[in-house]
């Protein structure tokens, strides 16, 4: 039995998997009332460990777990849940970051995550600082397997991670895998030949609200799960009021709707890619030519 789709939400989202609950939160709360793509959703952890999810009277047929989250598909899944190859390296330590709801489109949250320009201001003292606010040129292109990829990003960061107390210039690679899923690879502070993985997984609750789930995967150097989670919540707690004050709350896809500069290249690519995919939920689509 599939879930009714009266809003005719585009298959690229309706038939895909989305994160809907952090397993650790369910373990401590057992029941979560949330939403997905405009539908109400209740997720329950049963005493025997099984997970149930329903939207009104309809039980969800497609439910799975990965990376410490419950994932759901409301339609007929056309592909698997997103996979990050680096996270499969056996010595890596996975951490989930504590999910937080945001009164803004999840597409805005992806764009904010991609934005190098805000680091020196919103995350001053951690992920950037004045006067090191210039954005050096970086490269954006299509990602193999779909999405977009930004490479060659370099940012001076006074405190790039909970393991660092001194600043240095950090290498970043961004990958957008799905419209609501973005990942950042960042040189590990101890072993700079390996990359920390920080994924932001947005649950599109409504067009103008989302839940931000985060998944991190670190090489096993001095990683303290509690400090990683605390750092992630501190950083996202700085982003949240900024995101909630962006207007319009949905992401405009028209290139002329908002003024962008060279440093916003990944945002421009992201918006164009969303347009090509036909993503409308959470967006203000381009006006027909």
């Amino acid at each position, binding site marked *: 039995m599939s879930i009714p789709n009266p809003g005719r939400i585009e298959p690229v989202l309706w038939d895909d998997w989305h994160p809907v609950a952090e397993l650790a939160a369910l373990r401590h709360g057992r029941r979560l009332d949330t939403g997905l793509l405009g539908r109400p959703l209740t997720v329950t952890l049963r005493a025997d460990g099984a997970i149930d999810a329903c939207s009104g009277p309809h039980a969800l047929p497609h439910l799975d777990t990965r990376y410490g989250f419950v994932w759901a598909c409301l339609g007929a899944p056309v592909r698997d849940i997103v996979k990050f190859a680096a996270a499969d390296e056996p010595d890596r330590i996975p951490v989930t970051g504590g999910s937080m709801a945001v009164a803004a489109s999840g597409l805005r949250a992806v764009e904010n995550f991609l934005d190098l320009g805000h680091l020196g201001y919103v995350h001053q003292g951690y992920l950037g600082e004045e006067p090191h606010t210039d954005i050096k040129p970086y490269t954006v292109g299509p990602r193999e397997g779909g999405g977009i990829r930004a490479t060659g990003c370099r940012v001076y960061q006074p405190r790039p991670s909970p393991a660092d107390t001194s600043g240095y210039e950090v290498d970043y690679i961004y990958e957008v895998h799905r419209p609501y899923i973005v990942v950042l690879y960042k040189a590990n502070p101890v072993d700079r030949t390996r990359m920390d993985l920080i994924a932001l997984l947005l649950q599109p609750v409504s067009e103008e609200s989302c839940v931000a789930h985060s998944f991190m995967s670190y090489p096993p150097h001095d990683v303290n799960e509690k400090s990683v989670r605390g750092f992630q919540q*501190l950083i996202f707690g700085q982003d949240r009021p900024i995101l909630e004050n962006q207007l319009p709350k949905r992401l405009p896809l028209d290139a002329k709707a908002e003024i962008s500069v060279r440093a916003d290249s990944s945002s421009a690519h992201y918006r164009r890619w969303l347009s090509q995919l036909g993503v409308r939920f959470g967006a203000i689509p381009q006006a027909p030519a």
Partner: protein
Amino acid sequence: MIRLYDHELSGNCYKVRLLLSLLGEQYERVPVDLHPIRENRTAWFLALNPHGQVPVLDDSGFVLCESNAILVYLASRPGVPDQWYPRNDVQALGRTARWLEFATRLSGIISAARNHDLMQEQADIGALRSKARSLLRVLDEHLWFTEQAGRGWLAGEAPGVADVACFPWVMLSGEGGIDRLPWPAIARWTDRVKRLPGFVPMSGVFPASPGL
């Protein structure tokens, strides 16, 4: 040595961090993993505070819970200027107690609204926001009259624990969907707090812009 059992996003922990910083105190932060792990419900933490809440202060073995109690304790220690807890001015002391009570009311309502908006907790959000607005109106009026009387602080001539107790929850009201724009005297007061020497922000609360 002062040790604070703490969480970055907790408004009540921020109260204590703010006062410690305004007083120029060195202290050790011990993070408690509240979300989603609920370390505050584990046996070791409940032994520290049976209510299972942060903050908890440990001052060389003297353990105290409840954020307003911690503020009063910290501000009453020998060597701390009288202004922070004005124990020699009965009217200022009375007003301090009054605004500490107000801070408790405000934090109960704003934290419930914020947990609804941030953590997807169930709540009658309309009722919470309406109650919060009633409280903010009272605060704004009070601050307007204190400004007219040539003061700028909640309880006395100088900033005190009453200001420190109310400030976090006023600033976090936006995270519960409560707009602060209608309250100009509150905006001036929060700016004054942000410009105090030793002021520290928290995640979601930004410092005043420099140079004004």
